[in-house]
């Protein structure tokens, strides 16, 4: 996978983190550095662990593009596109749902609660790791880009939520879904041309 494709996918996936964190920022009465660092650590750790597991799974099952025959390569490319396309469709569905939240002041970070609501981020990381793994994308590149963009998403999300409330989460889901969908189309054109 090319560098700009990895970056676009990372941005698309991180917009889900943005959408989740916006809701957390919306209930802060004040942005405390401790809470911000806790959130960054939780989401960075999620991405680190799940993307690594996704890649290792592919390695263990020997499902990489170089180890596959021609038909196998085609299948892996299609699966990789389906994975990112599937995440894109789910994010667009979240944007469409446009769910309201009860904005009630909550300054502490309840780790169990954050882990629960960010479970989907873990799942995204896992399937993205598998998708990248199929294409033998450098794991170092994946992790640096994904974790780096996730950290930015957390910081941006907290400040946006704090200043503007939870409604920008819908835009996060919409933009993330669209970026992943467009990247998917670009990948499809490149793979099947």
């Amino acid at each position, binding site marked *: 996978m090319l560098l700009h494709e990895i970056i676009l996918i990372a941005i698309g996936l991180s917009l889900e983190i943005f959408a989740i964190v916006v809701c957390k920022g*919306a209930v*802060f*009465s*004040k942005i405390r550095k401790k809470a911000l660092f806790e959130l960054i650590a939780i989401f960075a750790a999620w991405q680190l662990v799940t993307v690594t597991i996704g890649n290792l799974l592919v390695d263990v099952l020997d499902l990489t593009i170089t180890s596959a025959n021609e038909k196998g390569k085609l299948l892996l490319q299609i699966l990789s596109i389906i994975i990112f396309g599937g995440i894109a469709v789910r994010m667009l569905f979240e944007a469409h749902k446009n769910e*309201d939240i*009860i*904005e*009630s*002041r909550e300054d502490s970070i309840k780790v169990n609660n954050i882990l629960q609501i960010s479970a989907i981020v873990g799942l995204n990381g896992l399937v993205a790791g598998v998708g990248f793994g199929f294409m033998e994308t450098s794991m170092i590149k994946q992790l640096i880009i994904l974790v780096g963009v996730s950290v930015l998403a957390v910081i941006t999300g907290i400040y946006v939520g*704090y*200043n*503007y*409330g*939870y*409604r920008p989460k819908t835009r996060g889901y919409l933009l993330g879904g669209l970026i992943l969908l467009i990247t998917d189309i670009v990948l499809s054109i490149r793979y099947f041309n």
Partner: protein
Amino acid sequence: MLQARNSVDVAISESFKELALTCSIEKITIKEITDKAGLIRPTFYNHFQDKYELLEWIIQSDIFDPALVLAQQGYLDEALLIIYTNLFKEKNFYRRASHLEGQNSFAGMIRADLKSIILDALENKDLKLPNGWVTKDRLADYHAGYIADVSIAWIKDNMPISPKEMSDVMNFMLKNSLLDVLKVEGK
């Protein structure tokens, strides 16, 4: 029980009341409330936990506090008239608020405030209750319940009778038991 009112609380509450006239309370966001009040969003949380606490504050300070002193001194008729008059002054807002159901229901808030006032009134009274199961708390709960129910029915019905007539209705209900009413009907 009497709540302090500062200018920011008042600005936030006025903004909320105006928004509630055109939008369901569940849909109103804190950003909308603070924008309309000309404040930055985080200011809201320095004053209220959430919009339901804001609504409770509005009910307490606009409706019950002005009548509290009269109620505590036994001027029940006057206290009721003040309560219904204050509700009537912003009938559209309270009619919309009365539709709030669930965990943060309007009925629950009214009932809780009424119970608190009644308990205050019963506080130092030596009551002759039939048995130990009937506590002051249960008594207050019962009376708060029917006063709240009748009042909310009046609000939801768009206050078809005047505040004076409504306070007369409530006076009648408070001073006459069901048995008294049935005896009158039986004559």
